[in-house]
């Protein structure tokens, strides 16, 4: 059991460390030579992108916390003081606020990539479930972070969302009082949300570590959804995917920078620049854009408890997705019918997002109900049946065969990497 590690590192100092604590060997194994399918397209950038955003969020968040005051009469002004009086405070604050939106854009693409290519299927079920936990933690963190500037939307958003728990019979009211630390959203609420907003990202790091650890046991999925059969199907992670991820990170940073520097309030509601006022409810209480689809599901059910259950259910259903999808074929490339339903489900989610942004009147009520029903129908009925009824296309023998037939000899090697399978 115990025993020194036989390190192969040549540098004597690093060797000395590695012999006693083989972290260098581990990094070499997991990120250096780690065998990775050779056919990733650029959608496989988004895990790395999420990691980059998380680092930016934690760095900017720690610096912001040094200047922020979690007290209800001072919170709003302290955020504005960061914008005005702290050196590059505006960069920290706009970077952090928009970083949250970027985080969700990246993670939602990451999730839909997983849905399209069947990345949740055996043996990656636990990897997927950890991902759903990550999404839940992100949502909790983002929600509490949005409360901190203590503007009108902060305050009323917090009021609406915490009040959801009052829908539960018997214990509901008590849960809400306990969440608030009082009988309304007030200073104790702000204090604890700040503490939790600082804590949860570190919990997030823990779960992400498990997510990545699980990934390194199962290995990555790939656009074909078939397992690598040997060294000819894989490439060492470095330099092939370190450089490919770097390209994605650069492009992503351009988009991020464009928002932060030129449209920093694009994702925000103007009402949140009005200090919180418990006596004046805004005409419309709208959550941040990344919660709109869930908000739409909540409002589409004409019963409070039912709506709350459906809203939470829309995420819970993702936990059991690996067992709801009965098809053994992973990638939608070889599932012509599933492919159609995938796009319909994406459409339903976008429509739900639009419904969430509008007052529940007229056409929006109907659209909301139809797409809510469709969202659940897709996971609970269509996927289980489709696995039995659909006739998938024949799978290629191996990744390398498919890649060479698809991309070999073409005039554009770069383009071939991006989507080598389109021609198969």
């Amino acid at each position, binding site marked *: 059991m115990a025993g020194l590690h036989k390190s192969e590192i040549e540098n004597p100092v690093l060797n000395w460390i590695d012999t006693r604590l083989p972290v260098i060997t581990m990094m070499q194994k997991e990120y250096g030579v780690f065998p990775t399918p050779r056919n990733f397209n650029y959608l496989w950038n988004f895990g790395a992108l999420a990691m980059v955003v998380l680092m930016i969020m934690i760095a900017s968040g720690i610096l912001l916390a040094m200047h922020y005051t979690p007290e209800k009469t001072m919170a709003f002004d302290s955020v504005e003081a960061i914008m005005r009086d702290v050196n590059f405070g505006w960069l920290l604050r706009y970077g952090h606020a928009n970083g949250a939106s970027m985080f969700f854009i990246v993670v939602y693409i990451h999730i839909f990539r997983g849905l399209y290519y069947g990345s949740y299927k055996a043996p990656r079920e636990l990897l997927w479930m950890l991902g759903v936990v990550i999404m839940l933690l992100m949502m909790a963190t983002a929600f509490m972070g949005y409360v901190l500037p203590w503007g009108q939307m902060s305050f009323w958003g917090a009021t609406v969302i915490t009040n959801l728990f009052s829908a539960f019979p018997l214990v509901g009211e008590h849960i809400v009082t306990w969440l608030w630390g009082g009988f309304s959203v007030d200073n104790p609420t702000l204090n604890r949300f700040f503490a939790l907003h600082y804590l949860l990202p570190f919990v997030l790091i823990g779960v992400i570590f498990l997510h990545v650890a699980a990934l390194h046991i199962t290995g990555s999925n790939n656009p074909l959804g078939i397992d690598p059969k040997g060294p000819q199907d894989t490439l060492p992670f470095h330099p092939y995917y370190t450089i490919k991820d770097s390209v994605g990170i650069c492009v992503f940073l351009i988009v991020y920078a464009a928002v932060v520097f030129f449209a920093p309030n694009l994702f925000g509601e103007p009402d949140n620049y009005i200090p919180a006022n418990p006596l004046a409810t805004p005409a419309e209480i709208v959550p941040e854009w990344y919660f709109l689809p869930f908000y739409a599901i909540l409002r589409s059910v004409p019963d409070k408890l039912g709506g709350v259950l459906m809203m939470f259910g829309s995420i819970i259903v993702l936990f059991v997705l690996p067992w709801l999808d009965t098809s053994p074929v992973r990638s939608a490339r070889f599932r012509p019918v599933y492919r159609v339903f995938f796009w319909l489900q994406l459409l339903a989610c976008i429509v739900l997002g639009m419904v969430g942004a509008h007052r529940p009147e007229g056409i929006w009520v109907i659209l909301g109900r139809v797409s809510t029903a469709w969202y659940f129908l897709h996971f609970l009925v269509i996927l289980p049946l489709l696995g039995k009824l659909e006739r998938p296309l024949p799978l290629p023998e191996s990744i390398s065969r498919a890649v060479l037939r698809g991309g070999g000899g073409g005039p554009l090697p770069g383009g071939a*990497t991006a989507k080598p399978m389109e021609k198969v």
Partner: protein
Amino acid sequence: MRAARLLTLFGAPALGLLAGLAFATPAGAEEEIVLPKQNWSFSGPFGTFDRAAAQRGFQVYNEVCSNCHSLKLGYYRNLAGIDLSEEQIKAIAAAKSVPTIGDDGQPTERPALPSDHFRSPYPNDKAARAALNGALPPDLSVIEKARVGGPDYIFGVLTGYGEPPADMKMGDGMNYNKYFPGHQIAMPQPLQDDQVTYADGTKATIEQEARDVVTFLTYMANPEMEQRKRMGVKVIAFLVLLTGVTYAVKRKVWADVH
């Protein structure tokens, strides 16, 4: 609603038709107020504040708005950002007195310094309501960011006064305004032609005064704007270069795989 516009932006490529149809339908029975769109010196990625307009705008704020509206997040020293000189700022501040505690421990007042916040016209919200028929004039520090439409909205409200339609019942002491939500605003028309006399000889029409004060208030809400945009241009130029180099390296690394 920003969220709605945003979603159209992102949803459009995927479902252009449906989104188009959906957003063409008014969200509710409420009529849509179309704000008068203006060309602002500070809009666009290279926009900067028109210094002369911002300085005239400060004059409008100082002589008109500040009688009721506070600007409490601003400091007198912020006026350096619209190119007022140190002497001018000192003089502007010194003309105001701010509350302090005297050497005898009693509340008193002293002339303001550039490091002081703008003096608020009322000691608190209740005092403002008591003096103004129950209405509370909002603080103007971040007003440009706090209203849908931003500068166009403020410009619209300042220039949108008029006679109410015959069938409209106005509340007691309320004024009709084309661009204010609900069209009834407690603030009487604040700007008139020649309300202020500009030192640079600019003719002080209502619209001129409104444009100037909007420029000033946009500066006060976003004092970092010019630095932000300048930095953004450099950052993005750098990132575009870096992307090019990284992509070239990627092509080279992958060349042997294809």
